[in-house]
């Protein structure tokens, strides 16, 4: 499909794209500012109180803190535009390389979680929502609100107690890459993520199916006598799906946050554990790089989520 900019649709998409890029720019600005506006000098903080003056000065230079803030910002943007996220203080590897080495694992199990969660949420949300039985709706809502309120690390600990400590089904140490061997280590984190995601996604789908159900156009659909499959798609699911899509793209960001904890618990060498390690080692460039990476990913996920939802249902505001 060729996108024309002079149509209303083209203009809307163009505007939203501009917005995504400008938010990304601000994400970089904030990531830059965090290290500079916090009290104290990062270099001396990292090296400790007893460090020599020359060592601190050397580190300041390595971090690019030895010039004035404006020049620092120019250098920072210049490096970023060349795809240079800096170099790790601990391993000496470029941050971009660290991310590209650790992110695939994280992406794998998040993608699996979303796939299963979507698959499970649709029948649950549609069945309970379409029945609109008050007792079902409220018991389901209560159950999911309990799951949502439970911190994922506590769910993980209980799961480990059952599946790893009492039975040796899900090892929590010694991750081995390579499919399908890695599934032995990944199935439990995927299951936990899926449980949490299902609770969130199906709630929203349920609410929009209930809304759709009382719409006038559903009546006309029934009266028109459309086939069961067409009815399910065009009169139940498609008009209800947009809020779910928007939420899922938003949840993707939250899930990235949650990976930090799950990867630590299950000793998975993903990007989340890398971040925690970098924080504990005061490895500023790595922290900053991963922060930017997460921020930009979240911005563009929500951009594509909005866009997809809009193409599905024109009532969505872009």
């Amino acid at each position, binding site marked *: 499909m060729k996108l024309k900019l002079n149509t209303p649709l083209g203009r809307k998409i163009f505007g939203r794209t501009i917005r995504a890029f*400008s*938010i*990304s720019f*601000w*994400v970089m*600005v*904030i*990531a830059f500012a*965090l*290290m500079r506006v*916090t*009290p*104290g000098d*990062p270099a001396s*903080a990292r090296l400790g109180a007893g460090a020599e003056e020359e060592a601190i000065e050397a580190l300041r230079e390595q971090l690019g803190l030895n010039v004035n803030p404006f020049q620092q910002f120019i250098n920072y943007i210049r490096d970023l535009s060349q795809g240079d996220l800096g170099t790790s203080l601990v391993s000496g590897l470029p941050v971009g390389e660290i991310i590209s080495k650790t992110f695939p694992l994280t992406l794998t199990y998040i993608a699996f979680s979303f796939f299963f969660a979507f698959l499970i949420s649709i029948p649950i949300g549609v069945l309970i929502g379409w029945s609109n039985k008050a007792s079902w709706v*409220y018991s389901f*809502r*209560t159950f999911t*609100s*309990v799951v*949502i*309120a*439970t*911190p*994922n*690390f*506590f769910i993980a*600990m*209980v799961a*480990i*107690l059952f599946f790893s*400590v009492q039975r040796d089904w899900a090892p929590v140490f010694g991750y081995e890459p390579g499919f399908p061997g890695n599934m032995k280590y990944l199935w439990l984190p995927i299951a936990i993520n899926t449980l949490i995601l299902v609770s969130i996604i199906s709630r929203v789908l349920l609410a929009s199916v209930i809304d759709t159900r009382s719409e006038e156009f559903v009546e006309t659909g029934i009266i028109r006598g459309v086939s069961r499959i067409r009815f399910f798609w065009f009169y139940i699911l498609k008009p209800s799906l947009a809020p779910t899509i928007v939420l899922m793209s938003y949840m993707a*960001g*939250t899930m*990235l*946050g*949650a990976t*930090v*904890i799950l990867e*630590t*618990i299950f000793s998975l060498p993903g990007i989340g554990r890398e*971040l*925690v390690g*970098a*924080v*504990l080692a*005061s490895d*500023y460039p790595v*922290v*900053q790089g*991963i*922060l930017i990476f*997460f*921020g*930009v990913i*979240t*911005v563009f996920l929500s951009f594509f989520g909005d866009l997809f939802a809009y193409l599905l249902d024109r009532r969505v505001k872009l």
Partner: protein
Amino acid sequence: MIKRIRDYAALPGGFGIIVGVSMFLSITVIGFARPIFIPYAPDELVGDGLAAPSWQHPFGLDQLGRDMLSRVLAAVPADIGVAFLGVSIPLFIGTLIGILLAFAKNKVFLSLVGSIIDGINAFPLLIIAIAMVTFLGPGLFNVVIILALMNWARYARIARTRAQIVLRENYVEAARLMGYPRRKIIFKHVTPNVSSETLAYALSDFILVIVIISGLSFLGLGARPPAAEWGSMIADGRVFLGEAWWITVFPGLALCWSAISISLIVEGLSRRDRAS
């Protein structure tokens, strides 16, 4: 009194609200009143490490031989207290900024603050909190600062949207045209309307913030030992999960208890909203 509670419970969502409020009150009251009826201090060594739950120590002892019941309750001010600060400060700042933005006329200022809000909100809250620990260092006090610096943006966005809607409302428009002073419009119409919206969000945000505080501590980035905090206790228990499940499970249950009590209230309120 009892009759009034019973009447309230009969309203849609009333039962959930009452259960939630009593769950929340019970854990806070017991938590703050702990010194009265628990004879052990949270950091006092009272027996062998990893002793199982008994009549004397219903929640067992941890790896160092500290009473778990005392520690779980001692963590109430740390978790619920910090979460309260971590919600109320951003709530106040965010609502204020949001309302000001709705009134602001200066284009440059508007787009600048708007972009900062969008930029901050782009980061998952837990991620940006973790990153800030790198620069500020661990500790519960720093967690409060981080939440104050980063969480207001979500409130500001809600408040700005709401305030803009209120300002377009006919009665406010009329008040403006009749030349009511701005201050009066803000206080009489905009503030109550906006704050009811941000307060509602604050309630559900409370759950998220409790999870973030305990999550940071779980990772060793929040509360520092020997302070009693649920997340860090769960982390302590991780190594002993096989031989001493109580170190992990009881703090976890306390955490769930608090979060679920709030979510029952949120659920009840939303059910009441839908019924009316």
